[in-house]
Each structure stands twice: as structure tokens, then as C-alpha cells.
């Protein structure tokens, strides 16, 4: 790791409490997200890794009453300043945030429209109407998500007719079409077969040339295969964070070592 590391997000003293819960689900998390790197969040079920991921684009705001504390800083590409996304109040600001921080879900979520329209949807929301421009962008996004060859002759077909793995790659294409700075992936392969999983993992490795990725996974092999940095979470706290190599080969914390060795989780 001789290259210079640049932070694209920086999470400071972050806590999160669900609506109606009497204690926070995430406690005092401090974590940097490095530019064009893959950061993996690992930990047993219920440790808060998905809750944390979902805070990074404030998708929790869909449901009322959730409480964020601390700071989540996101780098402004133009000025280079770090801006606290938890300060955003207006819907406009949140929409911008989500265009900059995209998200892939556990289950594929194709919209009920054609393959083309699925990918053009985000672009059209940004006001891009030019047909030629959209066509180019859709093709580009499908090519970078390794789906172009399979679907180029049926762009007008309903996206829900694709296989699960194809649907997930379509969702990735949809997310990267709007050129986000950060892509959040919430266990993106847990609903897929091994071959589709492999395709997605290869895609992640390829995509990090363009976009910073934060991936939640319960599959430790996956974390070790695709990520550069790994954060181990347990019971709502960040136990250990380091390069993937360090976490997997010489963890400092006993709990990390135990989890990685499969003693619990």
C-alpha cells in the first residue's frame, strides 16, 4: 500500500437509534472510507452492519423517528470539502446525496419496466432526456456491469424476466449509470447462486477503478476476496478496522480472531 490514500467518506462518533428503541443500535462508530477502495463490513447477524450501511445514504429517512448522532462526512468533488450528510434536511439534498451514494440491495430490485428504462430511470430523474445520450449511457452502464452481451438484443423486455444474477447486475448497472461516488452493497450475493456470486465479485473488483465501494457481507471468504479494507462489527460497535490482510491474518482483537476462525457468528 504505497499509493496515497484519500478519504471519500469519514464517519465520526456515529450512533444510530431506531424509532421507538430505547438504546442505540450503533454506538460511537469511527471509520474512514477510502477513495476507489472496497471496504467490507463483516460481523454476525444483528451486529448493525446493514444498519450502518443504510445510514450512509440516509435510506433510514424513509421511515420516521430514527435518530442519527455524530457525523458522516462526504467529500464534495468540486470543492474537496467534507460535508456532513446528517445535516441535510430538504428532500432535494437527500435526493442529491442518493445520486452520489448509490445502493445495491440483498434481493435484486428490478423496477417493473423494461431493461432500458430501468437503467435510464435514474438519468431521467436527473433531467437527462436526450435519447442518444441515454442510449449511450445505458450501453456503457450495461457494459461495465458485464450484462451487455446478454441483454443487448432485448433491451425492451421487462427486466423482471431476467435471472436473479442478471437482475442483480442490472441493479448495479442502474446504480452506476448515474455515476455515483460511492456504491453501497448490502449482502449483494446472498440471494444468488455460486456462479452469479462469482460474476458479481469480479464486477466489484473491476468497478473499484471507477467508484468507491462499501460492501456488507456475512461471507468472510467474499470479504477477503474482494475488499481492501475490512471493518469487523459486533453488537453495534466497530471492534476492529484495518486492511483486509491485517484483519484476516493478524487481527489485534480476540473477538475478531474468533469470528474469523468461525468460533461464533
Amino acid at each position, binding site marked *: 500500500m504505497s499509493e496515497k490514500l484519500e478519504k471519500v467518506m469519514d464517519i465520526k462518533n456515529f450512533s444510530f437509534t431506531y424509532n421507538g428503541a430505547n438504546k442505540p443500535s450503533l454506538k460511537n462508530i469511527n471509520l474512514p472510507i477510502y477513495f476507489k477502495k472496497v471496504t467490507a463490513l463483516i460481523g454476525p447477524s444483528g451486529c448493525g452492519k446493514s444498519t450502518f450501511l443504510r445510514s450512509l445514504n440516509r435510506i433510514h429517512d424513509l*421511515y*420516521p423517528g430514527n435518530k442519527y448522532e455524530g457525523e458522516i462526512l462526504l467529500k464534495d468533488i468540486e470543492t474537496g470539502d467534507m460535508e456532513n450528510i446528517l445535516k441535510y434536511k430538504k428532500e432535494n439534498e437527500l435526493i442529491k446525496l442518493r445520486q452520489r451514494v448509490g445502493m445495491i440491495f440483498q434481493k435484486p430490485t428490478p*423496477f417493473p419496466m423494461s431493461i432500458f428504462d430501468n437503467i435510464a*430511470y*435514474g438519468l431521467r430523474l*436527473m433531467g437527462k432526456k436526450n435519447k442518444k445520450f441515454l442510449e449511450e449511457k445505458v450501453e456503457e452502464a450495461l457494459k461495465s456491469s458485464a450484462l451487455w452481451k446478454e441483454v443487448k438484443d432485448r433491451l425492451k423486455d421487462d427486466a423482471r424476466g431476467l435471472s436473479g444474477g442478471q437482475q442483480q447486475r442490472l*441493479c448495479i448497472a442502474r446504480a452506476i449509470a*448515474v455515476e455515483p461516488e460511492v456504491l453501497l452493497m448490502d449482502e449483494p450475493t446472498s440471494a444468488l447462486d455460486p456462479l452469479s456470486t462469482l460474476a458479481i465479485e469480479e464486477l466489484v473488483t473491476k468497478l473499484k477503478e471507477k467508484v468507491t465501494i462499501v460492501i456488507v457481507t456475512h461471507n468472510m471468504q467474499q470479504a477477503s476476496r474482494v475488499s481492501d479494507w475490512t471493518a469487523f462489527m459486533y453488537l453495534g460497535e466497530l471492534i476492529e478496522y484495518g486492511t483486509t490482510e491485517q484483519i484476516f491474518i493478524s487481527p489485534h482483537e480476540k473477538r475478531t480472531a474468533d469470528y474469523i476462525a468461525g468460533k461464533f457468528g
Partner: protein
Amino acid sequence: MRLIINKIILILSTLAAILGLVFLFWILITLTIKGFASVNLYIFTHDLIDNGLRNLLIGQFILAFIAVLIGVPLGMIAGIYLQEYSFNNKFATFIRNLSDVMMSAPSIVIGTFVYAIMVNPIGHLNGWAGAIALGIMMLPIVVRTTDDMLGLVPKELREAGVAIGAPKYKVIFNIIIKAAKVGIMTGLLLAFARIIGETAPLLFTSGNSQYFTLNLNHEFPSLTVAIYNLATMPDKHLVDIAWAGAFVLTLFVLIINLLGRYIVKEKK
């Protein structure tokens, strides 16, 4: 002993089912025999004044169609509010319960209500009142269908829409409603089938007319009310027309219902 009880219950429930079906088929067969004999081209090309059904069929459809124009948008907006915007607060629970109560309200009560607010003040029966009464009947069914069908759309799809940067209303209108389209369409068809055969809400509101008219400010022709009136006439010919009307109406409702089921089967 348990085996015997099991057998007895099996026999009893089978008998009950057969009894129910017997009456259903009895009704359908009587209707077909008596109705079919009186169905001919003449009744579709002449109005009630000339012993035909034309004005009644058209009138019934116009009433039901206006009811759809009232009931569907209102009911769908309410259903969208309940499922997408209310977060199941107390007000939403109240509206849901109220809507369910309204669904089981006797149709004659709705007819009387509309009579009180729209016929009494104006001073005479009118088509608008009939259409509104049918619209009110339809409303809770549409609310319930929209609410339930939107509820079946996985929440991940809403999150995915928001995550791509769509405002909430666009997520609802471009994605969620499209995903629930088949279910909602089926529900709307069934709601339509439900109101097209209603008599009680029309009895005191739009009444009936023997003539062809498109003027909703006056009494308006209605097939169901006509059947009700004709069936009690002493003249056998008029009673036959009532049978024919009943047969045609049943056929319509049946077709709409089958269409609803067909859509569900095709799309799922």
C-alpha cells in the same frame, strides 16, 4: 370414535356444500331457461317504452361508469395515503376500520343517505344521485384493494427507488403502482362487477325511466330498478322482459368476474 366423528363432519360439510351449489345452480338454470327464452335482438334495439332493454342497459352502464370516475380516483388516493404516507398511525387505523365498516354497510342505507342529501333538496330523482350512490358503494372496495395490493409490493422496491434518487411521489407512481398494477386492476374490475348489479342504491336516487336519455338531471334508466319494477307487474310479457334483463345482467357480472380471474392468471 375419532374416526366416526371425522366421517360425520366430512359428510355434513359435503352436504352443506352440495346444498349451497344446488341453490346456485337452481338460480342459474331458472334464470337461463326463463331469461334466455326472452332474449332476442329486439330487446337490445328498443327502449323500455317499446318493451326493450336498450335504454336500461346503456343507463346502467353510464351510472356505473360515472361511479367509477368518482370512486376509483378517490379510493386509490386514499389507499395510497394509507399504505405509503400514513406509516400506520392512529388516523390510518381509524380510516381503515371506517372503510371496512362502510364496505359492509347495507346498500339501501347508502341509497337513503344520498336521497337525503341529493334528491330531497333538489326535489326529484336524478341520475347524478344514482351515480354518486354507486360511487360511494365502490369507494371502500377500491380503498381496500389499493391498500392491500400496494402492501404486497416489497419494501425493498421502495428503498431501491429512493436509493436511485427518486422523490417519494415518483417512486409511488412510476414503480410501486406499476408493480401492483395487476392486483389493483383486478380489484377495480371486481368492484365494478359489484356495483353494476346494485338496485337498492338506485331505487330512491336515480329511479328509472322508460325512455332513452343521457340527461342525468332527471330520472335515469336503470336495468336493476327496471327488473325490480317489472317483476311485480301482472302482465306476463313484462315479467318476461324482467327475466331477460336479469339474465343479461348476470351474464355481464359473470364475464367481468371471469375477466378479473383471467388477468390474475395471465400476469402471475
